[in-house]
């Protein structure tokens, strides 16, 4: 705070009202959040413990008889030595150093931070789901297989594509599956193609996946409307192109108006069209990737279908594909016999999976996520899903409009278009130039207002980008409060940009030295 002149902070009443010093007495951080970070390895004392081992109820045999010395560990791993109350306090304590969706607005663009209903946690925890072994015989796991079957059906209907594999573990895993399917599809037709087209608005996982799947990235330009530059596409679409990966609406929140033409061009050169489903929340029940011409779609169950994010997972990234891709789908596939019984077929003789690329992971995928997303789909129903997408788009457009009303538009113009789908991207360029605060500063200052900032500096082609996705589960009051906060910060910056430049002030730690962290990585606690 030394950098800030306290006096003029209070110059403008509007600033004062939002300033963290407003009502400064009684506004100091609670001690438990202020404590310096100590890891669990720095707590406890020798001999302390939480675990009480069940009785050694079998005849004693010396360990050395069962496990020869040379295979044995000589020193116990230096795990913590703490009591159960210490564990609880430690983790409850550090949990309070997290911001979370249940506590506030989280308009992280491209991440679809929609409310996570607790019913889903309840049903996922039922022992029949949570304590079901993945290798239980299918006859005795019929409920699970039916759930997966139903979920596949729903995802198929939502995407407009006939076949689904639930196996991939997250969006990027789905992308990998998609490109391996593409490879197999082309090779099956005797072709080896090398290139995959990705627009410059693409999420980083798209190009990264291209490389991992053994292809080469060819970038496509974005046109003035925020869609694919059709001419660029035409120029680059050739017989060596295996696939075009597209997000639609894309990461600018723009629904590509030329989608039909794009599909035609791509299919014209025999390539597959891949749909990155991270933004599906804009179009559920409104427009379907299959109907747009996509061959392969991944879903992020942890976005559109409200699997909680868990601070970075778990997720689940099922894929849906067209008929021509279906033979290559990962195994096992779920099949249903004439009596309605379900089976897992690891080696289908024909049809779906008959020329499978193989497995992408162990067992059947992240079933726990399936349970939650299936519960979500059951709760909303077909119409409810559409309502959700409509509300998501309405909320985004309303927030956009509110931000246009204020001084905001002058400093934070919308990067493309005038309306948006479920999210929109602002450019912080003018703000940076005219107010001397960067998008990063704005983001950090938002923390002092109790909001999670939008996604920043992505997509890359927008200068000082700010990508805002409110989702359908937020109220109008919240959107208004967020718009007001942005306006207040800009106004405050006009008076003194250092306030934002040095923000945040109300977090357990302030800006962290990321450069130092990467230079000499300390990625584990040093133990003695």
């Amino acid at each position: 705070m030394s950098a800030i002149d306290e006096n003029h902070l209070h110059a403008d009443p509007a600033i004062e009202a939002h300033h963290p010093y407003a009502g400064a007495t009684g506004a100091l951080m609670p001690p438990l959040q202020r404590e310096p970070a100590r890891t669990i390895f720095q707590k406890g004392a020798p001999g302390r413990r939480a675990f009480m081992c069940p009785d050694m109820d079998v005849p004693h045999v010396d360990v050395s008889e069962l496990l020869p010395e040379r295979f044995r560990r000589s020193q116990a791993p230096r795990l913590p030595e703490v009591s159960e109350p210490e564990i609880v306090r430690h983790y409850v304590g550090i949990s309070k150093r997290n911001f979370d969706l249940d506590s506030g607005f989280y308009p992280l663009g491209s991440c679809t931070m929609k409310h996570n209903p607790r019913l889903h946690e309840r049903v996922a925890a039922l022992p029949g789901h949570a304590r079901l072994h993945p290798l239980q015989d299918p006859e005795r796991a019929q409920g699970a297989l039916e759930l997966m079957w139903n979920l596949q059906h729903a995802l198929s209907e939502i995407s407009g594509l006939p076949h689904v594999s639930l196996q991939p573990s997250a969006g990027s895993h789905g992308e990998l599956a998609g490109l391996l399917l593409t490879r197999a599809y082309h090779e099956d037709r005797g072709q080896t193609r090398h290139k995959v087209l990705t627009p410059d608005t693409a999420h980083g996982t798209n190009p990264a996946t291209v490389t991992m799947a053994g292809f080469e990235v060819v970038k496509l330009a974005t046109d003035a409307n925020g869609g694919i530059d059709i001419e660029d596409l035409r120029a680059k679409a050739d017989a060596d192109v295996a696939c075009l990966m597209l997000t639609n609406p894309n990461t600018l929140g723009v629904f590509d108006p030329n989608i039909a033409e794009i599909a035609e061009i791509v299919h014209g050169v025999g390539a597959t069209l891949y749909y990155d489903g991270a933004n599906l929340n804009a179009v559920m029940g409104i427009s379907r990737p299959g109907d747009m011409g996509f061959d392969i779609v991944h879903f992020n169950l942890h976005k559109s279908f409200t699997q909680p994010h868990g601070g970075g997972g778990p997720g689940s990234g099922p894929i849906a594909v067209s008929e021509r891709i279906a033979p290559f789908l990962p195994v096992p596939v779920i099949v249903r016999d004439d009596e309605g019984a379900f089976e897992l077929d690891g080696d289908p003789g024909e049809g779906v999976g008959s020329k499978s690329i193989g497995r992408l992971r162990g067992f059947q995928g992240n079933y726990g996520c399936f349970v939650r997303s299936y519960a979500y789909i059951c709760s909303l129903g077909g119409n409810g899903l559409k309502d959700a997408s409509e509300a998501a788009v309405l909320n985004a457009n309303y927030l956009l409009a509110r931000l246009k009303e204020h001084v905001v538009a002058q400093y934070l113009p919308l990067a493309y278009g005038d309306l948006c789908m479920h999210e929109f991207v602002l450019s912080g360029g003018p703000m940076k130039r005219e107010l001397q605060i960067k998008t990063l500063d704005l983001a950090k200052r938002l923390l002092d207002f109790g909001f999670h900032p939008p996604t920043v500096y992505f997509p890359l082609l927008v200068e000082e980008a700010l990508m805002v996705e409110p989702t359908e589960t937020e109220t109008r009051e919240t959107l208004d409060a967020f718009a007001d906060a942005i306006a207040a910060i800009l106004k405050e910056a006009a008076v003194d940009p250092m306030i934002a430049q040095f923000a945040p002030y109300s977090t357990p730690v302030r800006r962290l030295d990321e450069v130092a962290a990467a230079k000499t990585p300390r990625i584990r606690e040093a133990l003695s």
Partner: protein
Amino acid sequence: MLAAIGVGSLQEIFDRQIPAGVRLGRALELPDGQSEQDVYEHLRELAARNTSVEDELSFLGAGMYDHYVPALIDMLMERSEFLTPYTPYQPEISQGGLQVMFEYQTAICELTGLPVSNASVYEGPSAVAAAGYMAKLHNGGNKIVVSAGLHPHSLQTLRTNAYGYGAEVVEVPLRDGVTDLDAWAQAIEAGGSEISAAIFAQPNFYGAVEDAAALSAAAKTAAAGGDASAKVPVVIAQVDPITLGILKPPGECGVDVAVGEGQSLGNRLDFGGPSFGIFAAREEYLRRMPGRIAGETVDVDGRRGFVLTLQTREQHIRREKATSNICTAQALNALAGVVYLTWLGRSGIVELGELLLARTHYAREQLAALDGVEKLHEQPAIREFALQLDADVAAVRRTCAQHGVNPGVDVHALSRRDQDRGVLLVAITERRTRADIDRLVAVLGDAVAAERNATQANRMSVPA
């Protein structure tokens, strides 16, 4: 709200953006939405049609295990503060999650005896494939030598991925239940500088403890062929973390990269996921590791804090040059993992390992003493072992099921490999008491005997 936006209707927002040709002109053909209680009842009804490990005496394992998950893990995983945030992109308000990652990394380093760990990958088999990819990035080789002792899912996943990144997978058979050391050395020698990685599982799929040190040493010697500057394969071990309280850690066996399935550590079964994958390595691999890594640093006031670090490895920074495409990983499951390890603690993990070892030994000896049941191998086993039945495994398992016992995994049904016919894989966790094991012995003994009698009778009734 529409007025603020400046449109006449919600429809207009869509009409102005989505071409008519790709609009869905009908309602989705899905059931109507339901009240919370109705959804609950439906999901409960589905759950009721599954036989969970609460509903039978189960010895299923082969990758996921019914270990006891302490109640405090549920509580912590359900805390909004851990359950609902995204990946910690804003470190100032994500210190909780970042510190958990840092602690997790520390615990995994301790367990594996390796100096660096990431914050999790998806799960076990894909971790093997990811390690294979990292090896390829590291040394450019395009052949992977792999022990047949890997879990079939790991083998298959590795092949699927290798198909993408362009590597050939060479399988080395087992002998006496463990990787054939000679064949292993030969395969590596034959591949020479083309070999990017050599992979084995510890304990292996059949429950046998491998001689990890010998396999690592052989891999390096065979590849180098005496040439100290020669390119050597990255030695990768797929480990079972819960055994590492008593088993020599990979870091002390010459292993370069340890990967593994983390489910045993405080994660529920969930019919196979979500869980988490372990990924630890020697220092030199740090900048090629996949996944998030939390690092320690300080803030502008000098306070200790944590950030996602070494992000230049990652897709959102490096895009097509990233060392992996992974984005969303398994943070919450890894949280359960580190809390579980903390709960077990320094002595608990050893005690638990010794309990598993003793009960496994007891079960194995009792079962192998049955008529028609033999050990598949004589190697040490910690909490799982393979038996060779002189009877149809599927039929035996069906009979056992009628008595409420699930005696283990029918290996052939899982692997589809001919040599696995008649093999039953039995897992013992701390939840299975001696009394439970005795019951298994009785029920399995009867089932095998009945099945052999039936086969016998059948044979006799068929005219020669």
